[in-house]
């Protein structure tokens, strides 16, 4: 009994053959290997940093950055500002291009997707060719080519193209538009706009309650639109039109006044949005095709009109298919905006991860900041996606 018979394997083999204990062994081994790897890397980092005489600290963030950022529409920035401020400017620029790009990409993508489904052969072919060509070419090439086109083909500021009414100009220095100048009293109009939106939302809820109770339907869309346009309009007129436009004008070699959209921003935003729009158009097409024909026939049989069918039956179901991949396209666009560095648009990668890195030699710290920022943006977008998915999930009994 004491002596193990030849058929009984030793203790290790027995543990290995038991499913539960094998799981534990595998996990312990994995963890040990992983932690050993991390520890080795950490040790190497410490040794290597000490060897080149660098220390790991974020103190450099308060040093003056000593480089210029040509495009900082939101906050004040000079080359005396700190690296931290440069990072914030970069982050805001990233967010600006991401938000503009997502909006443009959605508009263009939905248009292309619906064009692709058109019964008109020519329209659907144009959409197909455009989408297939654009999405099979790297986005970096789009950005560089678009930028090269803007910079080389558009005329210099002195010969700028007048795009509209002597107020919009296109030159190789960018796109110039009039900028709004708010005068005293404009704040009140702003408050009225917010108020009008609140009233419209309240009306919509009330109208839904009434409809649930009595079946009486109000033309909610038209009434809310009227509220949102009319109230601020009246406020604007009574306040004595507290808004004027600063129109760009050619002075010397460049335009003065107005708002300048830089060629870097223009190229990046447009290239990112038409590239992403190609993917969105396929998503939209798939989403609409996923709704079976029976759904619209059933809605028609219930007596719903075409627009009500679209609004109450088709779109809610199609959105369920469209939104998750759409969100991941938004995420891709945001991450692709890091390619801004190739054309000198100062986003987070180009400021803190580019010039600050080169100037301070703090590779570890700057890259940690940049990656952290992108991770936070990604997590924010994917948690929104999860929330939305949960909200619109098909509730089945």
């Amino acid at each position, binding site marked *: 009994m004491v002596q193990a018979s030849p058929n009984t394997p030793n203790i290790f083999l027995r543990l290995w053959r038991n499913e539960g204990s094998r*799981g534990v062994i*595998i*996990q*312990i081994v*994995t*963890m040990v290997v*992983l932690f050993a790897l991390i520890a080795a*890397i950490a040790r*190497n*980092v410490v*040794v*290597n*940093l000490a*060897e080149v005489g660098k220390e790991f600290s974020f103190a450099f963030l308060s040093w003056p950055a000593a480089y210029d950022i040509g495009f900082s529409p939101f906050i004040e920035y000079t080359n005396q500002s700190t690296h931290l401020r440069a990072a914030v400017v970069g982050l805001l620029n990233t967010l600006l291009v991401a938000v503009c790009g997502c909006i443009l990409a959605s508009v263009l993508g939905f248009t292309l997707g619906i064009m692709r489904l*058109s*019964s*008109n*052969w*020519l*329209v659907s072919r*144009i959409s197909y060719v455009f989408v*297939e*060509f654009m999405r*099979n*070419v*790297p*986005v*970096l*090439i789009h950005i*560089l*080519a678009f930028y*090269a*086109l803007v910079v*080389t083909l558009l005329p210099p500021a002195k010969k700028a193209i007048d795009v509209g009414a002597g107020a919009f100009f296109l030159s190789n220095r960018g796109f110039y538009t009039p900028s709004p100048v708010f005068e005293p009293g404009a704040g009140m109009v702003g408050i009225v706009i917010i108020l009008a939106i609140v009233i419209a939302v309240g009306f919509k809820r009330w109208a839904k309650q009434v409809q649930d109770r009595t079946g009486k339907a109000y033309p909610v869309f038209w009434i809310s639109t009227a509220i949102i346009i009319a109230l601020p309009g009246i406020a604007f007129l009574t306040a004595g039109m507290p808004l004027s436009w600063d129109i760009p004008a050619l002075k010397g070699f460049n335009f003065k006044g107005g708002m300048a959209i830089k060629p870097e921003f223009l190229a990046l935003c447009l290239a990112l949005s038409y590239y992403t729009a190609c993917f969105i158009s396929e998503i939209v097409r798939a989403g609409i095709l996923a709704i079976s024909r029976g759904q619209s026939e059933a809605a028609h049989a219930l007596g719903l009109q075409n627009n009500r069918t679209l609004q109450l039956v088709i779109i809610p179901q199609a959105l369920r298919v469209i939104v998750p991949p759409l969100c991941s396209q938004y995420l891709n666009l945001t*991450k*692709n905006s*890091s*390619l801004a*560095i*190739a054309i000198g648009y100062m986003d987070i*990668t180009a400021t803190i*991860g580019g010039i600050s*890195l080169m100037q301070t030699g703090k*590779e*570890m710290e700057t*890259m940690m900041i*940049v*990656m952290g920022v*992108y*991770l936070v943006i*990604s*997590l924010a977008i994917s948690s929104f996606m999860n929330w939305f998915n949960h909200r619109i999930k098909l509730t089945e009994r």
Partner: protein
Amino acid sequence: MAQNHTTHGYAPGAHPDLPPPVRTTGPIGWIRANLLSSPLNITLTLLSAWLLWSIVPPALNWALFDAIWSATDRKDCWAQMDEPRAGACWAFIRGSFRLFIYGWYPEPERWRVNVAFILLLLAIVGVLRDNLPGKKYWLWFAVAFPFIGAWLIVGGFGLTPVGTQKLGGILLTVIIGVTGITFSLPLGIALALGRRSELPALRAACVIFIEFIRGVPLITLLFVASTMLTYFLPPGSTFDLLMRVLIMVTLFSAAYIAEVVRGGLQGLSSGQYEAADSLGLTYWKAHRLIILPQALKISIPGIVNTFIGLYKDSVLVLIIGMMDILGLGRARLNDPDWLGLAPELYLFIALFFFLCCFSMARYSLSLEKKLETGHAQ
């Protein structure tokens, strides 16, 4: 009525079928149905025709009919046209074509690159064609190809060594693409299985890795590869830049492959797992014989899309100073002889990528059709 029939000489019901009205069949019918079916449709057709008319002929004139194919520099190019820049100057691309393909690979050793390209084509054909004799050996050859190719290109073991900094152009693009594709698929499958594993520690490690990689742009990972990775290694050791980039690109696309494959694994009904269990198959046997073949079949479109993405992303190495086709092209743009020929260059590179990626996409479509067994709902 009866009188009527007899006068025409047909018994009731014996009249031969008339051809369908001309307006509903043939080219005319097609045009009426697809282009002119309603006022809105007519407007759209006119608008599209106008759009095509205003874009296509000028573009064709520029790219083909007014283009110059041989010239010594851009001044010479423009002198041959009716007016400067009226057409494309393809002489620029022609003059740099060998540079674009081989980079700075030493002239006498370029046969090795050619052999590697031919072997690559053979490997691709071997993987993609079904009815080849000795299919098994073709597959083994395809698996061995990345190593044979690496030996041919980098040298050593009897061949003259060539430094990786000499690699460039299409050669570099293809190296990054092929290496990434070959190694990210097995790694991605492993990560997907890890993420689906019942062992919490293993699962957590895979989830953290996948979500981290998917959350940051590739360009930041390439920065890490080019600036920071040396800090992670034992002091004094150096590591080839190309190698670091290849590792990063592979890890990056493996994380995306993992998510695609996970989608495929989740798409299988649990009955498949239970069936494999009830047959008494072990974990690995069940996955090799039952689960993975089905899961991978569902994931083909996603996997190919990831490969296409990886191939397109390979141009990002330009930003950390490696000279792939885009980097070399941009360097050539700074040549005083060829200044300002950006449209030609970008169109050429765009066409190159379009051809590669579009053919991959078409192949994946045909593969999907071929593997469709009709079991899916």
